[in-house]
């Protein structure tokens, strides 16, 4: 049996959980085994049907006082206990922040190897997998010798697809938890931002070192506002203190996926590119025709962004009348 750990938030399965089940169905077929799912924490029962829709034959739920909110150690302890009780052939979660965190706790508790962010997995006496390195700039083929493979699948390495729908068998799991597991449970939650956020913005206007200064971002702000989008930036810009890190796009920043990314004064270093590559379209504005961002873009303007961006704003205003 392949046990898939499902992440859920405020009463819903997250997209990454549906991806993990989709990834898990393919993997279980290669292993010649079945897919079962684990839903840790409250709301588990309500989500069993959603899990079944994506192929879980049995859904193991686990509720407990300590599990009232997310806590990496408690969640890891529950999964480790499930592993001991249910003896799966492998365990899979999604390569989200929480998925990777919980699986690392499981691995530490069981002293078993854990391979994060796999994009392709071949089971066998020795397992083989391809996994993400450098935030997606590079892939690594590895082998795995393990009694119990613990894996996460890289975010968006598959498109979530329903399949194998049926009535799920619901099994309640009794975990042994105490106050020591509650040490790292979320104490408080603060909601800061309403409206369009960088990861969900339909348009991102990005600025790099070429913008030249903090105030140089004003026209980029104006353009983003006109298009109902957000401003993004490169790490060079955050390091210079021109923009907050929350605006940074890339490996150690935010991954964006807008309809169009307007990247101005950004050279397109690989660590920036991996955060921008999910954009549906890219328009580069750069004085250097050979810049990586220009080479990879769909469209480019080879010019000084300080002249081009105000002209674009003028043109939009003119057409809107």
């Amino acid at each position, binding site marked *: 049996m392949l046990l898939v750990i499902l992440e859920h938030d405020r009463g819903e399965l997250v997209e990454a959980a549906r991806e993990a089940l989709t990834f898990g169905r393919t993997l279980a077929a290669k292993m010649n085994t079945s897919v079962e799912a684990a839903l840790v924490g409250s709301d588990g029962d309500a989500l069993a049907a959603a899990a079944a829709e994506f192929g879980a034959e049995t859904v193991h739920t686990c509720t407990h006082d300590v599990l009232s909110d997310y806590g990496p150690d408690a969640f890891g302890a529950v999964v480790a206990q499930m592993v001991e009780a249910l003896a799966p052939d492998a365990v899979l979660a999604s390569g989200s922040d929480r998925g*990777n965190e919980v699986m690392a706790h499981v691995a530490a508790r069981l002293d078993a190897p*854990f391979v994060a962010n796999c994009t392709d997995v071949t089971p066998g006496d020795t397992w083989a997998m391809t996994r993400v390195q450098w935030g*997606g700039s590079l892939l*690594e083929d*590895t082998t795995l010798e393990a009694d119990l493979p613990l894996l996460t699948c890289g975010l968006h390495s598959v498109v979530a697809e329903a399949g194998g729908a049926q009535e799920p068998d619901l099994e309640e799991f009794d975990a042994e938890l105490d106050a020591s597991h509650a040490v790292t449970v979320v104490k408080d939650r603060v909601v800061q931002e309403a409206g369009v956020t960088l990861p969900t913005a339909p348009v991102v206007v990005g600025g790099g070192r070429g913008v030249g200064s903090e105030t140089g971002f004003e026209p980029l702000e104006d353009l983003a506002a006109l298009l109902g989008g957000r401003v993004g930036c490169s790490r060079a810009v955050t390091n210079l203190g021109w923009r*907050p890190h929350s605006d940074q796009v890339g490996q150690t920043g935010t991954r964006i996926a807008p309809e169009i990314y307007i990247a101005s004064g950004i050279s397109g270093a690989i660590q920036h590119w991996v955060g921008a590559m999910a954009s549906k379209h890219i328009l580069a504005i750069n004085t250097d025709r050979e810049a990586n961002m220009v080479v990879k873009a769909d469209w480019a303007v080879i010019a000084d962004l300080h002249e081009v961006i105000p*002209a674009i704003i003028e043109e939009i205003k003119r057409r809107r009348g």
Partner: protein
Amino acid sequence: MMKILVCVKRVPAPGSKINVTDDGMDVDAAHLGFTTSPHEECGVEGAIQLKEEHGGEVTVLTLGSGDAEEQLRYAASVGADHGVLVQTDGAPWDPQRTAAAIAAAIEALEADGAFDLILFGNESADAGGFQVGIRVAHALGRPIVQGIKGIEISDESVTARREIDGGFEVYELPRPCVLGVKEGLNLPRYPTMKGRLASKKLEIQSLDATAETGGQRRVRLHRPVEQVSETVILGEGPEAASAVVDVLEELGVL
């Protein structure tokens, strides 16, 4: 006195793309500079800020070849007090082995008192195993939370903030504890001239790395297949604005 440890990894700093050596076993760093993983650089800065606020000492530890001294000296140039090199032959180690060797080194360093706080990066920039800090925390029997972008410390506890979509979660951990931090925790300072000079004199403590290999073994590194598209040049000056707005109109984002 508060004692803080930061674990940092030396990684190459590639430009527009990452090249792989002919045997596929490593990043081709022949023409590259090296740096500290960005998350961990913020860990070092965070530790120094806590020291400035509360007093104490900051130790920076790295596991790798002798070359990784460069990253320890850099940390000293921005204010770290001690550097520890857990020396290997430089070949990439699997995460279980790395964690076991780091945990053993920390136990040795703690002979004269535990670190109040140990900082890791959320994930290393190159391998991205998402686990070394968590394994070490379990080996030491201390709580850990990942993804931290805010730290406050009091006599008994550590308050840590973790970013989630549109806000943040707050955790409260007892001391001693471990945190996996992310870039954005702070804006790392640059070394001063004085710091640079002091860092040259840093005495680096060298420890032997001994740990069994784990179950994961590298076969080869390779670049993902990329779709190459022709770039359409819309113009070479502000007069391209009209063509740009045509594109925006076509995409329906206007």
